């Protein structure tokens, strides 16, 4: 399908809010980040979405909620995650001083647990007795199934049939954890369809079910709520770099699919004008091929899954399929706050291809003894490309948001190696 061309399409353009004193005040009361965000859902869900919003506001202001979350962060997830100076990668690239924020060391192996923990504690406060979730690569599904096991709530995870084939180990892991994994056969049978199916389940079970959305997207309050739960990454990194270097970093960088790990790292630095913020989208086989998942670089504004944001779509407003070697980035949309930050010019959004990510994946593994997930391997690819041209006193913090054990099969296949 032909991708839409934003320059020639009417987008009912509204300019984003003029720069406020702070980039950290959003969203507004209705969940808007400038033009983006909002609550675009069927009427059946509207009252429920409002209920989740009210419950979240209440929890956010309740010290007991934060205390409970802090306890599980520390004793269950293993927070704080270290900020690690990647000495050998730094020496190899010969430029910027590179730090990894090591969220891949979290329980379940990625940043996803930060969000799942927050949401399940909220679900319990709301008296919900059943959890649903969507998953692409399976990392969010595993994290959701994990907290459901821990808090003894039944869990149904929707996963595209295509992804189920690609991610068999995670499917088994979810089932071991007691979750029911439902294959989604509609549409392109990937993450976006899993989201549709989860929303349909939710519409049909509004009274007892809580939907744990895996990224900082969806109808309000999810983008804000997921961001808040992931901000533990940036809050820790900020304190840790102050301790290690006595100053703020020059650049923070993270990969972006829906963008939850990135917004978690970025948000605490948004009002530090000297900190450059870089999000790395998945360029797949190359932006020019159309086979990519870079919604900001290759998409235009639209409405999907409850929010307005940049989407991969054709000129008729039909959603097109995303492609990335990383199943976790393989989504045709992006969290609305990133869409706003892009338009505001506060963050730079760049991209890395499948091939670049594969290179970076191998380099990091050999130099640092850390097998990154294919998702942060995209951020790493940008670091590998950029760091050599930066001065040695340039401090760069990259979010290592997931570990790569899950990806060894995809990588061996991409490298043409039979296991």
């Amino acid at each position, binding site marked *: 399908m032909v991708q*839409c061309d934003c320059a020639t*399409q*009417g*987008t*009912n353009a509204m300019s984003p809010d003029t720069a406020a004193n702070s980039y950290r005040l959003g969203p507004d009361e*209705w969940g808007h980040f400038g033009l983006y965000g*909002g*609550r*675009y*859902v*069927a*009427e*059946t*869900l*509207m*009252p*429920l979405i409002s209920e989740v919003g009210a419950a979240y506001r209440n929890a956010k202001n309740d010290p007991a909620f934060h205390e409970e979350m802090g306890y599980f962060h520390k004793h269950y997830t293993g927070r704080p995650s270290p900020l690690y100076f990647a000495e050998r990668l730094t020496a190899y690239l010969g430029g910027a001083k590179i730090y990894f924020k090591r969220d891949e060391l979290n329980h379940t192996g990625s940043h996803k647990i930060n969000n799942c923990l927050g949401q399940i504690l909220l679900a319990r406060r709301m008296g919900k007795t059943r959890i649903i979730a969507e998953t692409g690569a399976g990392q969010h599904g595993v994290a959701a199934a994990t907290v459901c096991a821990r808090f003894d709530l039944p869990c149904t995870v929707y996963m595209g049939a295509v992804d189920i084939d690609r991610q068999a180990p995670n499917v088994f892991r979810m089932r071991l954890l007691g979750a029911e994994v439902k294959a989604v056969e*509609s*549409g392109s049978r990937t993450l*976006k*369809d899993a989201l*549709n199916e989860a*929303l*349909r389940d939710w*519409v*049909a*079970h*509004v*009274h007892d079910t809580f939907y744990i959305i895996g990224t900082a997207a969806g109808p309000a309050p999810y983008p804000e709520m997921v961001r808040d739960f992931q901000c533990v990454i940036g809050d820790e990194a900020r304190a840790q770099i102050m301790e290690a270097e006595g100053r703020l970093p020059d650049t923070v960088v993270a990969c972006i699919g829906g963008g939850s790990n990135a917004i978690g790292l970025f948000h605490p630095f948004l009002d530090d004008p000297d900190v450059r913020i870089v999000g790395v989208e998945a360029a797949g086989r190359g932006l020019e091929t159309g086979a990519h998942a870079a919604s900001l670089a290759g998409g*235009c*504004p*639209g*409405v*999907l*899954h*409850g929010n307005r944001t940049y*989407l991969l*779509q054709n*000129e*008729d*407003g*039909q*959603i097109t399929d995303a492609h990335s070697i990383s199943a976790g980035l393989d989504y045709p949309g992006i969290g609305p706050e990133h869409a706003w930050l892009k338009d505001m010019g506060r963050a730079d959004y760049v991209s890395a291809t499948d091939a670049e990510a594969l290179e970076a994946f191998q380099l990091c593994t050999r130099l640092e003894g850390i097998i990154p997930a294919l998702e942060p391997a995209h951020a790493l690819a940008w670091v590998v490309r950029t760091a050599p041209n930066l001065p040695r006193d340039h401090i760069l913090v990259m979010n290592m948001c997931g570990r790569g054990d899950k990806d060894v099969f995809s990588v061996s296949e991409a490298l043409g190696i039979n296991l």
Partner: protein
Amino acid sequence: MSRIATRFAALRKVNRAAFVAFVSGGDPDFDTGLAILRRLVEAGADILEIGISFTDPMADGPTIQAGGARALAAGMNTKRIFDLVRAFRVEDNDTPVVLMGYFNPIYRYGTARFATDARAAGVDGLITVDLPPEEEDELRGPAEGAGLDIVRLVAPTTDEERLPLLLERASGFVYYVSIVGITGTRSPSMVDVEYAIARLRRFTDLPVAVGFGINTAEQAGAVARVADGAVVGSALVHEIGVGGSDMLDRVSVLARTLAHGVAGARA
């Protein structure tokens, strides 16, 4: 008076409800889709609800999603939907046509252009499933300006605090979603529907149609006894999906049965 208001007024005079028939526009292709619209009216449909297909119809069940996918595969898009309505209007200038869809295709088309082109094609009203009143300003202005009715969905989960917000700017008719769920998957409890309609009537004088889960003539009849309209979609779209050389005839037979169910309900 708009076509929608005229039709409901005429039906009220003879004490019967409207049979509202839904199909995805251009399912399975443009020409057959046009023939289906004409057959539905011949068979007794009082109002046509034409779906604008979307790749990600989150409020629809598998039947209607499949219908939309067939239309998309046959090259339907927003412009072709208008062509379809225009072609239908050549022979029928009375039957109200309501477009039902999701916001993204409308947004990409441009809301102002959409409203103008829809009106020019002969569309009477819009149902935008995922555009709640809180987000609809950019469409409502152009739609009202073009004289299109904004048909609101009201759900079983909608409470009385929210109802006034939904009904304040509603026009044409109110569409009551009879089940907590997606299209074509469950059947409503008539006791609940009756109670809900009684509640709605305390808040609005607009006609109330009921849909999402009405599949048989019996169900349509039961709804027609208490509501001003019964909407059937998935059952018709299913027949289209089954296909075959007698598909048009089977759709006609089903539509006629449903129309009889509605027409005879208050007899």
